[in-house]
């Protein structure tokens, strides 16, 4: 998605280790058989294996302010997740940190395009609004609406990935592109989260003796059943419909209901913003806290890699994407939550 960015201002702070390994056409040997040359179109001339695509594994960091990692996982043929991380200067001279994570809906067409468009649009919207002094919660709401518009616009476009042309994804063409979105903004000692769908944000304090918390409420069948008091949590999540999402961005959505919430943590910690490819392997806030390295605040990129590794070790059944946002302790005298 870096090269998709029309503004070209997505600096790649850390080199993607897989990209570095990827052989240039005709030079380095194939990553699969180590014997064949790689043709110009990315296939090994010996074993035929497609060389890894950039999007299969993406990493990005903004100094120590925020970092994100996205991986195709071990079972899916492409990465349909996307993320955007950035910082924005606020009018008072302080810095806001933005992290957006999106998960393309596989049963719809072009889920990879949908998630990339949504993450890009939400990030751009926040980076434009926050420096103007827009209330972060309002800015988050507007960013979700902008992301929704961007995904809706895809429904009218021809596919742009060129990966298969006519007949590609033929079984999916009935549904307009769609994705989930979860975003976090850290600004002025406030933590704003916004979401649609079942991608999540968790709060994990640096002091692991204090409890971690999930900051989002899934738009999912199971969550709705529990919220309506129709089922217990265990029963609802055991149902095969549990993970069916009830809210998403895309032209097929009945109506857009962006959720936003504001938190004012009274101690330092990190915000984990992720797709279900991660949280399926660390569902409760406590589990998430246990897999999160202790030095998460100092090394967010390393921390994001560890979390993705946790999901891959667990089976990597889905694409895995996580952004890690360290949250500094509020200034003494600041209002506590």
């Amino acid at each position, binding site marked *: 998605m870096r090269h998709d960015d029309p503004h070209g201002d997505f600096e790649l702070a850390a080199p993607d280790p897989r990209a570095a390994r990827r052989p240039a056409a005709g030079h380095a040997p194939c990553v699969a058989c180590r014997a*064949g040359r790689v043709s110009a179109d990315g296939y090994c001339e*010996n074993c*035929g294996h497609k060389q890894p695509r950039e999007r299969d594994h993406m990493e990005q960091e903004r100094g120590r302010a925020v970092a994100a990692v996205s991986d195709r996982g*071990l079972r899916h*043929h492409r990465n349909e997740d996307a993320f955007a991380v950035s910082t924005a200067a606020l009018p008072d001279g302080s810095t806001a940190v933005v992290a957006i994570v999106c998960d393309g809906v596989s049963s719809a067409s072009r889920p990879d395009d949908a998630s990339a468009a949504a993450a890009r649009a939400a990030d751009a919207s926040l980076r434009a609004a926050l420096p103007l002094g827009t209330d972060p919660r309002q800015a988050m709401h507007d960013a979700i609406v902008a992301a929704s518009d961007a995904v809706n616009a895809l429904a009218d476009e021809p596919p742009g990935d060129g990966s298969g042309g*006519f007949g590609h994804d033929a079984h*999916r063409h009935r549904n307009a592109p769609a994705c989930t979105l979860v975003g976090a903004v850290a600004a002025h000692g406030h933590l704003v989260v916004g979401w649609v769908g079942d991608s999540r944000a968790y709060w994990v304090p640096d002091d692991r003796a204090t409890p971690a918390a999930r900051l989002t409420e899934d738009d999912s069948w199971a969550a709705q059943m529990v919220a309506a008091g129709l089922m217990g949590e265990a029963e609802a999540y055991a149902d095969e419909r549990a993970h069916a999402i009830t809210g998403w961005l895309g032209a097929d959505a009945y109506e857009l209901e962006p959720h936003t919430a504001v938190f004012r943590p009274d101690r330092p910690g990190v915000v984990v913003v992720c797709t279900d490819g991660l949280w399926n392997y660390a569902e409760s806030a406590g589990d998430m806290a246990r897999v999160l390295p202790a030095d998460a605040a100092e090394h967010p990129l390393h921390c994001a890699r560890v979390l993705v590794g946790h999901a891959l070790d667990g089976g990597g059944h889905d694409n895995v994407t996580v952004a890690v946002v360290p949250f500094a302790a509020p200034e003494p005298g600041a209002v506590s939550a």
Partner: protein
Amino acid sequence: MANFSKSSVPRFSVEVYQNEYLPEGGSEVHAVVTVGATGGGTTGGVPLPAAARRSPHRRSPAQGDAAHDQRAQGDGAADAADGPGRGTAVVLMVDCSGSMEYPPTKMRHARDATAAAIDTLRDGVRFAVVAGTHLAREAYPGGGRLATAGARTRAEAKEALRRLAPGGGTAIGTWLRLADRLLAASGAAIRHGVLLTDGRNEHEAPQDLRAALDACAGRFTCDARGVGTDWEVAEVTGVASALLGTADIVADPAGLSADFTRMMEHAMGKEVPDVALRLWTPVGAEIVFVKQVAPAVEDLTGRRTEAGPRAGDYPTGSWGDESRDYHLCVRVPPAGLGQEMLAARVSLVRPDPAGGLPETLGQGLVRAVWTADTAASTSINPQVAHYTGQAELAHVIQEGLEARKSGDLYGATARLGRAVQLAAASGNTDTAKLLSKVVDVVDAATGTVRLKAKVADADEMTLETRSTKTVRVNRTHMKKP
């Protein structure tokens, strides 16, 4: 999908239709490859008036100066060499065996048909007529040469046809070998034969015909026609199959002239000779089959010639403005979920007459992608499904007719019933019509049929000869994404 051809030759397009998704452990990849050639300056089979043929706008760039020079050296008849016919040589093989005498109109129709074919030759095309019996004789022009089509040579050739008298046996292999000698001597780029027979190949052993076909394969293309009903379908279709031409029955000799005219128009439209379908497959892969599936089924699997590491060429003959479909099946070593592999690189190649590297006219990719998404891996591409059905249709007709001949009425009913069902379901109305002359259709949808008690030889032979003809997928049902 890709279009790499130079502007100086017909543009070849290669499109691949497949479901690239495989389940975990899946290894069999199917694809239908549509190859189209357009813009080569051919007329789609309609001969142009002489004036138009000489217009500079009609001058086809398909044959370069090299072809021109070669031809000029060949027989010194370069004066007529302007137009797409240049560089083409045709040998007409006419059965003159004793059986052509009865009914007496048969020889006359064969003469008329050959004359009509000669009239359809473009000016400048080199041609010869071979009179075929138990041996082959040059009926026109003789001396191991070919004539150059023009007003004078056409008249001479037709005069020579009038002198053809039936008498003797039938040894088709000898006709083909003579045609091969004549065509090879011509030096023409596009070398084509037309063979007309009315009887069985009785005066040479089957292995002699086989050996002649093996010797001629890849050296010229040949259409074959059986006239009347006393010939062997397998012999005529065997000639066309081996030499990448068409086969048909002309049960009523009166229909020969029209058929020969059409056939020759088609031959005159050919512009690019000796095109091969080149398949590259990855290490460990196995090509299960390669079939032409439109306009007719032709299994090419056994005709591979190696063409470098992991690549092989399958002959497709010569091309004019036309489109053909190929169904290929490749077995690849399964890779892990999420992995993508190139199962085959399909290209159209033309050898360089000067002996250099072959020219790639077009290319397409057949991919394999392993996924846990069962909705993706279980869906069957509509083109693949359609041609799987068309190939089965040809197969069950041949089996059904074989069963009928051998007295296995139960087997014949079952297979021809299945054929009726497949023909109806796929919209192959021509084949459905031919089937209805051999069986009484009770219910096409379920394939319920009764064998007709009496079937005309011509109807049975027509069905057998045309059993491999296919129809294309009705693409109006297929939505572009």
